[in-house]
């Protein structure tokens, strides 16, 4: 059973604002979705390796060098930020 407190905690971890009404709604929904996963408890998987990707992946390395991007592309990336100052992305003060 998922409690309201738990829902608030998860929402905070997810950086997701929720209204009081939604907290209650998600509490009910999460509880019933989690019930659905109970069926997996029947399976004994102690000896099974977890699979994070369908196929074996190797790390791909490259030299740690700055790659020169065209300036107009860099400009476009900066322009996507809602708040800017010159060529900087503006963030609320955190101190």
């Amino acid at each position, binding site marked *: 059973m998922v409690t309201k407190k738990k*829902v608030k905690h998860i929402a905070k971890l997810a950086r997701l604002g929720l209204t009081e009404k939604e907290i209650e709604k998600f509490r009910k929904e999460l509880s019933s979705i989690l019930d659905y*996963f109970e069926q997996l408890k029947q399976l004994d998987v102690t000896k099974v390796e*977890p699979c994070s990707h369908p196929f074996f992946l190797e790390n791909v390395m490259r030299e740690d060098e700055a790659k020169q991007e065209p300036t107009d592309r860099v400009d476009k990336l900066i322009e996507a930020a809602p708040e800017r100052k010159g060529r900087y992305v503006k*963030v609320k*003060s955190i101190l």
Partner: protein
Amino acid sequence: MNLTIKQAHQGLIKKEFSALELAKDYLKKIKKIDKEISAFLTVLQKSALSQAKQIDAMIAQGQKIPVLAGIPLAVKDNILVEGERCTTGSKILQNYVAPYDATVVRKLKEQQAVILGKTNMDEFALGSSCGSAAAVAADMAVYALGSDTGGSIRLPAHLGYARPQRCSVFGRAEGVAGRPACFCGVVGLKPTYGAVSRYGLMAMASSLDQIGPITKSVEDAKIVFDVIKGKDEMDSTSVEFKNQESRIKNQELRVGIPKEYFIEGIDKEVEGVIKNAIKKFEELGAKTIEISLPYTKYALACYYLIMPAEVSANLARYDGIRFGYFVNKSDALLDVYLQSREQGFGEEVRRRIMLGTYVLSTGYYEAYYLKAQKVRTLIKQDFAKAFEKVDVILTPVSPTPAVSVNLAGLPAISIPAGPVRDKVSNGAGIQLIGKPFEESVILAAGQVFEKSQNSAAT
């Protein structure tokens, strides 16, 4: 109209029509009928017409043009086209302009493809490529690109008619009605994980997502796949593989029929269509073999743990700071995050973020997420074992076989196979699943099946 890529290409090089006429025809059709269907979110009239003119100039000069040159296509709105709006169907990116081309788009542009517009979808692809499938089904594009995380290319392509204007309703939890290629009577190909670069695809669930074509024929799916496949240095999960011609002749093809997909709740008419398809393969000389995928019944639970977990991680980047919707009501950084994400994300997106965060959180990770990853190994092994005895696996196009394919990373194609009288569809499809990187086998088998369908119809 209603041309395949092959037919449109022939028409262009034989000068039956110009690329400009073709593009104009399609744009006119979109204008005329898309009010009802809402397949497109953005129509790129200007760039489509200027691209078409360039192809006509090439043809006039007697240059040889690539098969996709001048052929109008639609691109799902979670795939970046430089300089154009890309919303992924979400308020949080309603004004986002793509700063670069996705690799698949760059490859298509190199072939001088004509992009007509960006297609409708469920927010963050949580439902289906319904706009892309509907655009092709209603002939508002010759073909389209979609993305497939748990069946969203293959499913809408198989139904008779996807209704993107109701995407947000249909798409809920990938409910039956929101699914793309199989619901539209068109062909949908989900390539092997890693076969096509995901660079420039807005990530939903990174270990499941793949870009693939939605087309009017299996041959067309092959044409598009051959252009977009291959290793890309911008996607470290992409791999190079030799596109060997199919190693199998139809007489030798061993088709596996998983018994687990033919129980509980399968629609009688759909079952009839599938049984006919099995018979057809036998008539064509293939050998059908009953196989078992014992962990099938756990596939949906496994998928609905892994997918939201990856969604919650991927969507963490939408913070209102670097791009996207931004609520500026407070001086506290945390409030900017909370409010931008509260208002920017729709209900289904938030539900999945909550679920995903829950199953990844301390104390629950092992019981849910890690468990699902282990079940995923079992599902993968099911297929590996089955593929020791068969070359392809034939299934209905429904949620369980669809998500199983994504969990195992396998290539799969959905092909229309016959009419059914259903409330949401007027056709059912079959899905052919192949071994990893054996797109050539399922495409070859699919082509033979499709040909036999067409000759039966005439």
